[in-house]
Structure formats: structure tokens, C-alpha cells
């Protein structure tokens, strides 16, 4: 049974590489459509990751310092985009940021039209990927023994120093794992992007969208991009594994980190 299950899971992945010779896959990656998609994906995802890390890290830290019901409500709100169907996310982004949406008027006043631009791709990717980072980051901060920041403060460290010198290094592995997960999700983003940003080659067409378009046009290009994404995904998975192992393994590295959160 295990063999059948594993075969079922692995067969589609292996099949991508068996349809055409590897050399054809490599040359297909050189096509204009593939090159444009790589560029668009790299740009939009890089900016999205900067936004996710920049805003998400302090937000996750703040949430991790809350207690009880407030914390639970905040975590649930953060997790909502995680379980939301991508099509709903696309509609939501349209009616929030689109031309006729809630904030559309604001963008008009500013003379900005984000529809079908890279900005809309970045918004879509950030929206669907940030919960992955936030969730992991909140857990990583909460896993730090609360007496450590308390000790740092009695040693003369202000809040900022406690954050940068104690919390960030100790939660680092967890934050890295969360960032890798968010990046993987952003890379695969499809539904919300195609609805909110469209699929314009060289502008909003990311790798995932390019696969869908090349599916009908040049199937080998679709296969080549798929193969590329398999490699990247496998690499991200490896990073997450190494980081989470390091993180959970810290139980033995930090024998006293597992003490109670509630001092008597």
C-alpha cells in the first residue's frame, strides 16, 4: 500500500521529465515566453518577500506577545487567507484594490492604475503567501523562552535591542522556514493572480501563468517551466526541512528553553 501511495504521488513529478529529452527542456527554457515569465516571477516575488518579511516580522512578534483570546483571534484572522479558495482571493482583491473597488478611487486620485500591472501581481502574491510566513513566525517567536527577553531587559536592553539581539536570533530558524514556505506558495500563485492581474506576457505573466498559457501553444515550454519549478520547490522543501530540524533540535541545544511560560 505504501508503495502504491508513493508511486501515485511521485509519478506525475517524474512524468514531467520523461515526456521529452532533458536537452529539449533546457532549450525550451530559453524561449521568450519562459524568459519573460522567469523575469516577472523573480521581480514580483522578490518585492513580495521584502513586503512579507518587512511588515510580517514585527506583526508576528507583536501578535506573539499577546495572550489569550486576543492572540487566538489575531492568529485566526491571519490564517483566513490560508484556507480561502484562490478564486475568492482574486475576487476580494478586485473589489478591494481594483478600479471599481473600495480603494480604487484612492488609487485614481493618486493617478495610479494598478490593474494588470506588476503591482497587482505583487499584491496577489503577498496576500496569499504572507499567512504562511506569519503563522510560522508567530510560532517561532512564541517558542522562545519568555525569561530570555525578560533577562535581557534586566540587563539593560530596551525593547528594540531585545528584539534584534535576542528574539530575532533565537527565532531565526523558524523565520527562515516560514519565509521559505511563503516563497514556495508565492511561486505557485495562480488563481488570484490570473483574476486580479491577468496574464500579460512580460508584465503580469508569472511562471505558473505561463505554464497554463503554453499548455495550448508550446507544450514543451510548459513542461520545461514545470521542471524548473519542481527543482525550485524541492530545494525550498530541503531548506525548510533543514531549518525546522535545526529549530526543533534546539530543544537539546537549549536545555532550559523549554521552561514554563507562566512564572509563579
Amino acid at each position, binding site marked *: 500500500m505504501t508503495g502504491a501511495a508513493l508511486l501515485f504521488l511521485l509519478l506525475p513529478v517524474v512524468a514531467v521529465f520523461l515526456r521529452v529529452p532533458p536537452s529539449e527542456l533546457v532549450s525550451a527554457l530559453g524561449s521568450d515566453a519562459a524568459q519573460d515569465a522567469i523575469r516577472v516571477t523573480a521581480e514580483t516575488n522578490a518585492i513580495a518577500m521584502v513586503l512579507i518579511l518587512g511588515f510580517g516580522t514585527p506583526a508576528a512578534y507583536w501578535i506573539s506577545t499577546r495572550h489569550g483570546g486576543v492572540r487566538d483571534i489575531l492568529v485566526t484572522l491571519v490564517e483566513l487567507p490560508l484556507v480561502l479558495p484562490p478564486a475568492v482571493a482574486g475576487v476580494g482583491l478586485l473589489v478591494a484594490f481594483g478600479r471599481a473597488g473600495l480603494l480604487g478611487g484612492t488609487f485614481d486620485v493618486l493617478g495610479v492604475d494598478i490593474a494588470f500591472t506588476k503591482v497587482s501581481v505583487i499584491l496577489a502574491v503577498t496576500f496569499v503567501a504572507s499567512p504562511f510566513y506569519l503563522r510560522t513566525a508567530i510560532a517561532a517567536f512564541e517558542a522562545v523562552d519568555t525569561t530570555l527577553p525578560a533577562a*535581557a*531587559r534586566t540587563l539593560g536592553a530596551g525593547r528594540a535591542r531585545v528584539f534584534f539581539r535576542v528574539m530575532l*536570533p533565537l527565532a531565526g530558524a523558524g523565520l527562515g522556514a516560514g519565509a521559505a514556505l511563503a516563497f514556495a506558495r508565492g511561486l505557485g500563485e495562480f488563481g488570484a493572480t490570473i483574476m486580479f492581474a491577468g496574464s500579460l506576457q512580460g508584465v503580469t505573466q508569472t511562471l505558473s501563468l505561463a505554464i497554463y498559457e503554453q499548455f495550448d501553444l508550446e507544450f514543451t515550454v510548459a513542461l520545461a517551466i514545470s521542471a524548473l519549478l519542481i527543482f525550485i520547490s524541492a530545494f525550498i522543501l530541503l531548506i525548510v526541512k533543514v531549518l525546522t530540524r535545526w529549530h526543533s533540535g534546539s530543544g537539546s541545544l*537549549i536545555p532550559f528553553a523549554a521552561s514554563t511560560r507562566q512564572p509563579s
Partner: protein
Amino acid sequence: MALRIRFTHPLRSFDASAELTVERGETLALVGPSGAGKTTVLRIVAGLLRPESGSVTLEGTVLLDTAEGIDVVPEHRRVGYLFQEYALFPHLDVAGNVRFGARGNSRVEELLERFRIGHISRARVHELSGGERQRVALARALARDPAVLLLDEPLSALDTHTRSAVRAELRELLETLDLPTLLVTHDFEDAATLADTVGVISQGQILQLGSPSELVSTPSDPFVATFTGAMVLAGQAIGTQNGLTEVRLDGGLTAWSADRATGPVNLAIYPWDVSLGPSIDGDSRMNHLSAPVTSIAHMGNRVRVHVGPVVAEITAVSAERLDLRPGAVVTASFKATATRLFPR
């Protein structure tokens, strides 16, 4: 020049409150069971917990005054806090931990030397023994040049083997430091060894404050007596004879006490005031009880022997001479003047 604390703060099932003064060079120990509110006092002094009402003054500087709305943040209080399990930073080495508190002053080398951790200055926290961890934590706490030292269960994370050596070291350190020191522990023996003044704390209230010998000789209530190591036996004071109170203990035995009481009482007696012998030997002691030995526990050069309802603490040498073994009938004796009666 002292630490003054006064506060009231609600805990889960009771209100904790205290009013304490610790002079410079003095060590005050708060001793009590876990959950009694001991750590709360330390957290309030350090600024990690703001009590519902109260004030903290250190060397004339007001650190906290809830009535005046003053609450100095922890990083600006000159407090050296030794946490229960030391709270060393696992991502820093020994020198990094000590330097964290020092903020650029040059005392780090001196402290590493003084606490004999210079040779392990590059070691990570997880590589250290319990005793080394404690020295690193002390060096780190002193690196910021504190005006008060707070010690939370400084010995509880150590095994019994290193404990007594570390305790002697700590005592020496506290004597040389000219700081007010506030220490909390659940172990009366640790408190008695390390502190000049001991406060017994239960349910957030300090029951009695005094020197260790005062607490042992004149405990103010049965809880303090138990905590300082006494056995507490329940009974009824049934009369007076020759100025002594006759107590019928629950279980049928009779004991005499030099304390006066009537009605239901608790009788407290320390194990080291109970002697053992093969028979009633007509000496000056008023209380004798013959019963089989139920258990014998060795504690270094001393032995604790359970005889009926009482525990006797005698030297290992005497235990050997008496040839004690479980089941053998011996007579436990104690003086009426060694007992304390507390009305129930």
C-alpha cells in the same frame, strides 16, 4: 541606602502583598512553597511586573510608585537578576552572555576571571555544567553594576552533589558584595545558610520575618514550624500539671509541653531535638515513646529515623552504635521545653 518594597497584587487564587526593607550588605530570603508568590516579589522589583498598587525604592530612587504613576522600565533599573534556571542566552557564548549586560565597559575580563569562567569564555551554554551556568549567570548579572541583587532559586537547578559547594561559594560572594540582596527559595536550609533575615511566605503573605535561628526557636505558627523543619503533631491539650501542659496526641500517645495551651493544639518538635535509645532511661526528658522503627534515611553524617509518629535526626555514629534496623523497637525521647504548642 537600601531597597524598600511595598505592594499588593492579585494572583490567581489570593492577593500577594509584602512590605520589606533590605539594607545594603544584607541578604533577605523569602522562603515558601512553590506558587506562594515569591517570584512575584522579584519581578516587581525588576520591573517585569507592575503590581496593582505599591512602591519600590532603591538607594533613594523611586523605581515604582503606582499612586504617582511612576514605573521605571526594567532596562533603566539597576537590578542584577539571577533567574531560576539562569536564562542564559543559548545563541551566545559565555563571554557573549556576560558582555550582554556589560554594554562596553571593561569589567567583562575581570568578571570572567573572578567567576573562574575565563577558560570557557568561548563555550556555548549547552556545553556547561550546572555550577558553571550559575557562575556565568552571576557574572552576567553583576556585569551591569547593579544596585540590588535578586536571586530566584539560585540552587534549585543544581544536583545535590554540586549544591553544597555552590552554596558555600554563593554565601562567600554575598558577603563580599555590598548590595542589598533579595533571594527566594523553597528550601529553608538554603535560606538559613545564605540569608541574614528570612521571611516565610505562604499564599502571598509573609507569615514571619526574622533571623533563621529566631524562626527555628520561636516559630509564630505551625506553617513556619513545618517549613523550618519541625514535625507537627495534632492533639488535645487536656490539662496542666507542675506547670506543664499535658497533650493527648491523635493516635493515643501523651506528650508534655512547657508551652501553655488549652483545647485542640498542634505540637511542633524538631527532629534534631529527638534522641533515641534502647529503653526509657530515667533522664530529665519528659517525653518518651517506644515504637518500632519504620524507616531509616541516611543524609551524609546524619540519619533520619521514623519511630511511630515521630522522626528523630541523630548522627550516623549513634545510629551505628544503637544498631538500628526497621522493625526494631526503640525509645524516642524529647524534652518538654523543646516542644511548641499552637492552638488549632
